[in-house]
């Protein structure tokens, strides 16, 4: 009996590896080939010469330079990290909210859904650059932003009022940050919203029926059915938002890395990017670890 179970497990492991095989091939023969050179740069001194470059091994010199001698790297790193704390919850909550709205039935849904997909098409391309370099368009946007600054000026008065009312200063500054960056945040929720929409679509209506028959209100339905059923995709969105914020070419660290590349300081640029990726990796590993722990304990609670 025990022996046959082992063979089933072995067979399952073999099948699993077969399914993952394309990725193994791609990773080793395409991805690794492309990144090994950049990784070699980290531990080398690279000097350009006509028609190529020379490199020789220098150990940890580049890495120690960026952490101890570079004036901006640590500062930029902290700035990027702290912007993450603001962005992730806001993007997740906003995109889930819009996905639920778009999932309900109303007139003109096709049109509104098409419009909500526009940021995905426009913001990921060169189109945004062209629009931003267009003086007429930017003046039109600026006039709407002028509106925004008056609103935020008002909200500044509101901020001090809220602080006077006894709300924590941190909480208030958090919300005023959100309201002043709403325009930017709206452009960033497109991907997450569509992932949520797909997740909501795959919840079987019979679950809602069952819980409604048991007497659950819409609010309880949301917490007892919608949230647990979309949990896997919430995780995907958290991971995606973290990666998107970190690798956004507009953030401080990425700008610094890009400027090093354009200065032909390949070794330092590579060292910087790898240190940065490692850090991103640690953050993601932490998120995934915590989520898998909570999942497991929830499952255990469910069984008990």
């Amino acid at each position: 009996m025990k022996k046959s179970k082992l063979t089933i497990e072995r067979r399952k492991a073999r099948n699993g590896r077969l399914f993952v095989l394309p990725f193994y091939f791609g990773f080793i023969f395409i991805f690794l080939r492309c990144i090994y050179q950049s990784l070699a740069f980290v531990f080398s001194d690279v000097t350009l010469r006509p028609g190529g470059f020379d490199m020789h091994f220098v150990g940890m010199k580049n890495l120690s330079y960026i952490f101890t001698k570079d004036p901006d790297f640590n500062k930029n790193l902290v700035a990027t990290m702290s912007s993450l704390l603001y962005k992730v919850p806001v993007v997740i909550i906003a995109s889930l909210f819009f996905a639920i709205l778009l999932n309900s039935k109303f007139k003109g849904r096709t049109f509104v859904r098409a419009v909500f997909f526009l940021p995905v098409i426009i913001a990921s391309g060169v189109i945004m650059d062209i629009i931003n370099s267009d003086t007429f368009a930017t003046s039109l946007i600026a006039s709407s932003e002028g509106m925004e600054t008056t609103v935020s000026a008002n909200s500044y008065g509101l901020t001090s009022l809220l602080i006077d009312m006894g709300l924590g200063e941190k909480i208030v500054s958090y919300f005023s940050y959100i309201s002043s960056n709403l325009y930017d945040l709206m452009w960033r929720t497109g991907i997450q919203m569509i992932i949520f929409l797909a997740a909501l679509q795959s919840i079987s209506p019979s679950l809602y029926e069952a819980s409604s028959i048991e007497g659950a209100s819409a609010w309880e339905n949301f917490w007892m059915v919608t949230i647990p059923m979309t949990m896997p995709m919430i995780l995907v969105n958290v991971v995606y938002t973290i990666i998107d914020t970190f690798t956004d070419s507009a953030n401080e660290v990425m700008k610094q890395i890009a400027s090093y590349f354009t200065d032909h300081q390949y070794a330092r640029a590579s060292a910087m990017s790898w240190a940065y990726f490692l850090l991103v990796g640690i953050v993601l590993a932490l998120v995934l670890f915590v989520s898998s722990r909570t999942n497991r304990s929830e499952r255990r609670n469910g069984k008990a």
Partner: protein
Amino acid sequence: MNTVKTEYLLKRKAPEIIWKIFRFLLFVGICYIFLFPVLYMISIAVRSPETVNDPSVIWIPRGISFSSIKTAVKILNYPRAILTTVLIAVGGTLGSLISCSLVGYGFARFNFKEKNIAFALVILTIIVPPQTVLISSFINYRNFDVFGILTLLHGIIPSIPSNIPLINTTWTFVLPAVFGVGLRSGLYIYIFRQFFSGMPKDLEEAAMIDGCNAFRTFVQVMLPLAKSAIITVLLFSFVWHWNDYVQSSMYFSSGQPISVMLKQMQSLLQDAKLFDVVTSTPDEIRTYLQAGCLLTILPPLVLYIFTQRFFTESIERTGIVG
């Protein structure tokens, strides 16, 4: 009777109506934010280049002229550029769909020793932005060797080339996509993994008991249920391949895809003597640029409008009863 009715209206109907009004206003506001660039593109693109600086016009042009769009089609070499882009986007999307659904299913449903490490590597492929490995990717694809096999064969039979140059071909996008390391493939693998792991196991077990092997179970039982994940990945992959500029500007030196052409449009206009940096201001070519933008976003937008209706067909009857 009457009081009951008013009470009913107040308690039940009023919040619903307020909610509907709120939702409507929210949609109007957000639609304006998102539609702004597109409306702007349309408004500018249908003007003739001479009338673009008419100060009395903000949104609605005085006369409609398609001359800017016609010029943009010619300057961008639109049919050729679109053909390349479609090949990249369709090939890359299909490749990603096949490989990422397989890999995602493997991660979701099977246990093997190195699974967690392998999944960490998947995440690694999305953390590293393509910009940082661009140069070595270029070298890799310039003399592409099929997993070291070609060099080996070349040693035995000299008529076989030792490497294949893939630069300027759409294979630079399709090949990594087929092997699950294409443009943001890691994200698609993750989406599929999460999607499959959220599905009930009953159907697979039933299929296994009926004598289905793992691959057939995947194709015939699981894939049809993953429709919304497939649509999501299809849309993202298509749009990102369509819009990619960073990699395609590196891999293509002729017959470039539309995003690269659009980026170069100003200098292309200059070459065609339609624009002169010295004598004219960038405002004068605005109609051409916006026409180019409009031509670029139109195909993926049409694709989205056609595919989004699949989102509304939820999997209400998945076959699991009771």
